[in-house]
C-alpha cells in the first residue's frame, strides 16, 4: 500500500528565517509529486510539480523553491520566510503516465510565520 508522509506537522517560524518541508511517498515508483498551499481562507494553489527525479516545475511564484532529490522525496524550502508564507502546505502524488488520475494528499504542514 502507498503511504505519503509529510513533516513537520506544524511549524512556527520567524520572518526572515529559513524553511524546509519534506514529503516522502512509499510504495509507488516514479509518481508525479506536487506541492499545494492554502492561505487561511484562501484557495488551494498548486506551487510545484515534479514528474521525475531532479526535475521540478514551478506553477506559482511565491519566493519558494522545491527539489526532488530522490524518486520518493519532495522538498519545499526557502532561505527567507515572509509573513505571506503562512498557511497550510500539502504534498500530493498521483500516478504518472499522462492521464489525470486521482491526487492523493498528505496530512499537511501548518506553517505560521510571525
Amino acid at each position, binding site marked *: 500500500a502507498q503511504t505519503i508522509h509529510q513533516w513537520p506537522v506544524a511549524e512556527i517560524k520567524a520572518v526572515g528565517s529559513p524553511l524546509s518541508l519534506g514529503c516522502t511517498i512509499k510504495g509507488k515508483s516514479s509518481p508525479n509529486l506536487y506541492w499545494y498551499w492554502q492561505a487561511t481562507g484562501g484557495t488551494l494553489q498548486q506551487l510545484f510539480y515534479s514528474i521525475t527525479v531532479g526535475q521540478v516545475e514551478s506553477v506559482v511564484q511565491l519566493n519558494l523553491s522545491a527539489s526532488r532529490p530522490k524518486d520518493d522525496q519532495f522538498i519545499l524550502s526557502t532561505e527567507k520566510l515572509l509573513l505571506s508564507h503562512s498557511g497550510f502546505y500539502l504534498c500530493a502524488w498521483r500516478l504518472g503516465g499522462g492521464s489525470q488520475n*486521482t491526487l492523493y*494528499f498528505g496530512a499537511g504542514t501548518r506553517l505560521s510565520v510571525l
Partner: protein
Amino acid sequence: GQQVKQSSPSLTVQEGGILILNCDYENDMFDYFAWYKKYPDNSPTLLISVRSNVDKREDGRFTVFLNKSGKHFSLHITASQPEDTAVYLCAAGQGGSAKLIFGEGTKLTVSS
C-alpha cells in the same frame, strides 16, 4: 484570474435533502473534472471525477454533471446526511498535464 470558480462559499441543507454544488472553469482545454471532499483539519480526498468524453457520472448518492459548452460542472448529492458536512472542492485539469486547478471550495452544512 481564477481559472476554476465555485459560486457559493457556503451552503446549508436539511438532512435528506438534495443539493447542487456548482463549478465554472475558463480553460476549454480542460478535460478532467473532479470533486474533492475536505473535513476540517484533514486533507482533501477524491469524491468523484469525470473525463470530458461523458457528460454525467453517478456514484451512489453523488452525480457529476458536465456541461462543456457552458464550461460548467456540478455535483449533485441526494439524500444528504450530517456526515456530508465538509468543504467541497472542485478541480479541473488537462489530460497529460500535471496541473490540477482547484476552486475556492464550498462549505456544506447538513443539519439534522
